[in-house]
């Protein structure tokens, strides 16, 4: 009797489960992965803002041969000129790319003030042509490049504002 009742209950349970209605559908997902690289300025002399992005700004304040060096810079006085020196840290990351290294160039955004020379890694920068800083840059690590601004004693007292445009190209 007991077994028969249990069997009956079991049958009723299976019968109830059969009432659930089911259906299905498919959502296909497609796309195309494109390779890319990114460049960020990680550090620079001066009072710097925007580090870790692709657009950083360094404010040097008022600079003079016989004054103090700006924050993060050293000052060296020559016979007919003076130089403030620091470094610029640049990092290049890659994604979905098989390239193992990159070439980094720099170019001034505008012509430097008369008597003022901008240098990176010892090379003089211009606004007319890009200067190669490295052709074997390592992805994911910050490359440090020496940064010098040489001011002739004969240069007029005026703003030296400029921009250094970095370009990274995967090899």
């Amino acid at each position, binding site marked *: 009797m007991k077994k028969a009742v249990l069997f009956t209950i079991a049958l009723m349970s299976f019968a109830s489960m059969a009432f659930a209605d089911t259906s299905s559908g498919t959502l296909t*997902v497609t796309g195309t992965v494109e390779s890319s690289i990114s460049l960020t300025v990680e550090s620079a002399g001066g009072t710097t803002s925007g580090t870790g992005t692709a657009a950083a700004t360094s404010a040097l304040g008022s600079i003079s041969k016989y004054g103090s060096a700006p924050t993060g810079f050293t000052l060296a006085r020559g016979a007919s000129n003076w130089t403030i020196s620091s470094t610029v840290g640049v990092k290049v990351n890659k994604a979905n790319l098989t390239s193992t290294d990159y070439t980094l160039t720099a170019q001034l955004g505008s012509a430097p003030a008369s008597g003022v020379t901008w240098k990176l890694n010892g090379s003089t920068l211009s606004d007319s042509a890009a200067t190669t800083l490295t052709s074997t840059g390592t992805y994911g690590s910050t490359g440090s490049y020496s940064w010098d601004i040489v001011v002739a004693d004969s240069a007029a007292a005026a703003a030296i504002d400029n921009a250094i445009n970095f370009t990274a190209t995967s090899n």
Partner: protein
Amino acid sequence: MKTFLSVALMITIALPALGGRRRVVAASPATQGDLKIVFVGVTGGGSDAMVDAGAMSQARSKSKHATSVTKKVFGIRIDSAAEGATATLLAFLEVHDGRSTIRIDGIEIGTAPKVIAAQIRVGVVTTHTIEIEVPASVSEGAFASAVRWEVATN
């Protein structure tokens, strides 16, 4: 007693059939097979639709991590004659090339079905977000996956 048990068993076995017939005869034409998933706001619509993430790259992504992420919002409606009913919605990867991670409403989808919504109302469009993430280590090129959706009335 044996006669009673035999009759009870026969009634038990016959109940589902009788019940099913009653549902067909009722004014509402709800029967198995009426239940349907309808995608809204994606290419294709109906029960088989497509989401094209387009070109994905880390440079285009808003993510600061070493991945490319794109999100798309779409709708799902469960059609059934059983108005007012609720259903359970599950999803799993039916086809996957391993080049991306797919999340629905924040739930990472794998090959085993996962519940996306346990009490989805029949006849109402619910919005869902599909998130497609491509790691930086994946080589460039096309990717494709198919998310299988299953719905069962509660």
